[in-house]
């Protein structure tokens, strides 16, 4: 018989890849004599409530954890005084260092944990004992560096986010990752380019149109916005953003107008010296007319801020133009379009559509839009119900200009006719305001001289 000794029982991994368990209750008290495999406790894991059989025969000397505590795998939970030797096993993980290594939860079937670094951390080499090695298996690695310095790594992210960053011209090295283990997530990239914490950020950038409200883009120009201060940094989840985009109740109105006078004006302007070299199209006039009509109907140039329960009224217009590009639909916008002359607007429109078609639209051009126009007329389409660019209150679709029999001076005449389709967020815009805006727009097309009256 050898002398009595103290044995600790450390909490084992009771499932497959569990890192912790909760002590539900103890079935023994300090001082109790227990048999091998006698149930000493009930423990709840992420998977099951299980009974712990004693790994020793002996006397309980200490219960290290109270019922209700969540204990890390590898920590001692109970100590026994056992007669030396016999068949008593070493405590589970008894060889482990006193402070058990922190384990990340990795339940079987739940996928691997994202590590903060992509390769194993090496222990300090015993340089004296080991001759330098060339390691053929690792030729793709950067040259072996001293153990103290970490090799430069590609920033940790995911393929879709890498693509997003590439599309936006963002270097991931410059972005701070807020995800698990420093992972750079979509929001990090969007925040980096600005406006990422706005409702539109959850949308697929190319598909949903990238015109994002100008919260960040115009910081420093705050005097042009009427806003109350935002408390703290707001960060919506992608789900909330998508939900927000889908919760804007759309109303669409249609107006078909005789745009012959506008087309005649266009022809005159094209031949005028002031517009030499500029590309004037029906879109140019519709855009200008929309900007004029907005002055009388500002509610169409606003944003619903659900999270803060605020309506943001923009006192400027960043006019988004939906553009078909090699990457799909994008909605770059013209900053401060409301302050532009027709010639300036024309130039801006040309630049914007050209760079969009070339796939060279800058992130800044894609963010901060306040209202949008989509020209479905170029496809020969008359009307539709355009979907709001997320975060905006209105979007106008202009149809094809067609020669049609139309009432003209009490006669049926062949006139140039266009249908305008306006969708607006009914939370922000009442039918009255939407209708007035559309009517003003129509009037400006039917009689460009009205600009003198409306502007």
């Amino acid at each position, binding site marked *: 018989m050898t002398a009595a000794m103290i044995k600790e029982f450390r909490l084992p991994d*009771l499932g497959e890849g569990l890192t912790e368990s909760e002590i539900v209750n103890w079935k023994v008290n300090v001082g109790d004599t227990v048999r091998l495999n006698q149930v000493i406790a009930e423990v709840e894991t992420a998977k*099951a409530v299980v009974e712990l059989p004693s*790994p020793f025969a002996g006397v309980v000397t200490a219960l290290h954890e109270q019922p209700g505590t969540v204990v890390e795998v590898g920590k001692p939970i109970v100590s026994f005084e056992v007669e030396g030797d016999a068949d008593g096993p070493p405590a*589970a993980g008894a060889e482990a260092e006193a402070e058990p290594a922190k384990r990340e939860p990795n339940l079987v079937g739940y996928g691997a944990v994202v590590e903060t670094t992509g390769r194993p951390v090496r222990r300090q080499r015993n340089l004296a004992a080991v001759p330098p090695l060339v390691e053929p*298996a690792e030729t793709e690695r950067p040259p072996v560096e001293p153990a103290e310095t970490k090799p430069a790594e590609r920033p940790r992210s995911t393929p879709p986010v890498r693509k997003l960053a590439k599309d936006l011209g963002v270097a991931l090295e410059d972005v701070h990752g807020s995800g698990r283990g420093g992972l750079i997530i979509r929001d990090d990239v969007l925040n980096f380019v600005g406006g990422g914490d706005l409702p539109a950020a959850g949308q697929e950038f190319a598909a949903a149109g990238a015109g994002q409200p100008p919260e960040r883009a115009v910081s420093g120009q705050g005097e042009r916005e009427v806003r109350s201060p935002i408390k703290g940094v707001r960060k919506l989840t992608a789900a909330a953003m998508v939900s927000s985009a889908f919760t804007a109740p759309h109303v669409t109105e249609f107006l078909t107008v005789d745009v012959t006078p506008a087309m005649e004006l266009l022809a005159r302007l094209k031949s005028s010296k002031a517009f030499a070299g500029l590309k004037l199209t029906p879109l140019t006039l519709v855009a200008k007319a929309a900007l004029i009509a907005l002055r009388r109907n500002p509610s169409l140039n606003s944003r619903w801020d659900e999270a803060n329960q605020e309506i943001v009224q923009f006192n400027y217009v960043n006019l988004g133009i939906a553009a078909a590009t090699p990457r799909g639909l994008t909605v770059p916008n013209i900053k401060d379009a409301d302050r532009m002359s027709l010639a300036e607007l024309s130039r801006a429109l040309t630049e914007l559509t050209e760079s969009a078609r070339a796939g060279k639209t800058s992130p800044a051009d894609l963010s901060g839009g306040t209202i949008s126009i989509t020209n479905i007329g170029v496809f020969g389409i008359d009307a539709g119900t355009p979907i709001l660019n997320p975060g905006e209150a209105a979007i106008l679709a202009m149809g094809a200009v067609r020669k049609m029999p139309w009432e003209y001076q009490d006669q049926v005449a062949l006139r140039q006719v266009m249908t305008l389709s306006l969708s607006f967020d009914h939370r922000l815009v009442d039918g009255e305001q939407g209708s007035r805006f559309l009517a003003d727009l129509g009037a400006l097309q039917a009689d460009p001289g009205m600009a003198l009256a409306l502007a």
Partner: protein
Amino acid sequence: MLTDELGQGGTAAEGPGNRAEHQGRTSGNLVQLITPAGERVSHPEYDPWVQDVTDEQLCSLYEDLVVIRRIDTEATALQRQGELALWPPLLGQEASQIGSARTLRDDDFVFPSYRDNGVAYCRGIKLTDIIRVWRGNAAGGWDPYTVNMATSQIVIGSQTLHATGYAMGIQNDGADSVAITYFGDGATSEGDVNEAMVFAASFQAPVVFFCQNNHWAISEPVRLQSHIHIADRAAGFGIPSMRVDGNDVLAVMAATRVALDRARRGGGPTFIEAVTYRMGPHTTADDPTRYRDANELEDWAAKDPIRRVKALLDRKGLLTEKLEAAVQQKADAVAREMRSGCINMPDPEPLDVFKHVYSTPNSWLDRQQDHYARYLASFGDPAGAASEEGAH
């Protein structure tokens, strides 16, 4: 009613219901030779197949049942104590495993699933070899050719293909040995098992499909997987089948003998559905109370495979104190041996992972092994590094 009523097959055995030769559906009757109360009931078709079982052998079967239950509970405890990573308890299925495995010849070949550790015990596999994999110390516990039993298959049902292939090999050799494969009710829904049965029938291979219907494929009840008795699925393949009380060691033995005999005489494959019940969790990482009714467990506890043999021995006057003491002693010794073998099992060496990958030298593997060896050497003290790693 969630579970089968043992011995209550609905209509009485009419027609060829339980006839081993029957090629069609089984009529659902369970072959039973020992009732849950321990009464030996006669069955004209199956009695002859166990007539040679002596009282002594019956006692020996009892010992087997008790010992493997003890192995199972000890292994479960070892898992709870952190000595095994995982264990798939066979509690309740002892009679299915003992009854079938004890009928095999040494030259028959067993293709088991992961839960068939009672079969492994019967094949004479060392206790430490049985638990080696479950401790995470090796990828396989034993050399299949020394005991004619493949290592445990974790992939559901794949072993049935191996068995059919092996049986076709037996055919080519002109031998009269048999391949037997063990799988569960859930596996019969897998493509592998269906393919194995197609080939077995086509080639009339000497293979026995031994299905332990333990009623639960993890949390999926058998009634959702099969709208007919599992045994009746075999009819679709043209494979004769039997439906036996899997908690009745003698019935299982008789049915397996029928199947083995057919296979040895060139009669082709047989499907046996041993109707039993997994009384424990799917594995030590599972909590069956989340998906099954406690009443169901109680029903099956009443049909316990060990209790009925004990009751039968008692009726026959064979259950002496001496026998009970001897069986207890044997079970204790086995449990002690396994525990000691488990906790004193040396950790594998890091380079052991390269062993047994190929049976012949492979230059790619050699290169990888060389790289890994040098990687380990870069820590300065490979032995130290290895033991440190082993501690996690």
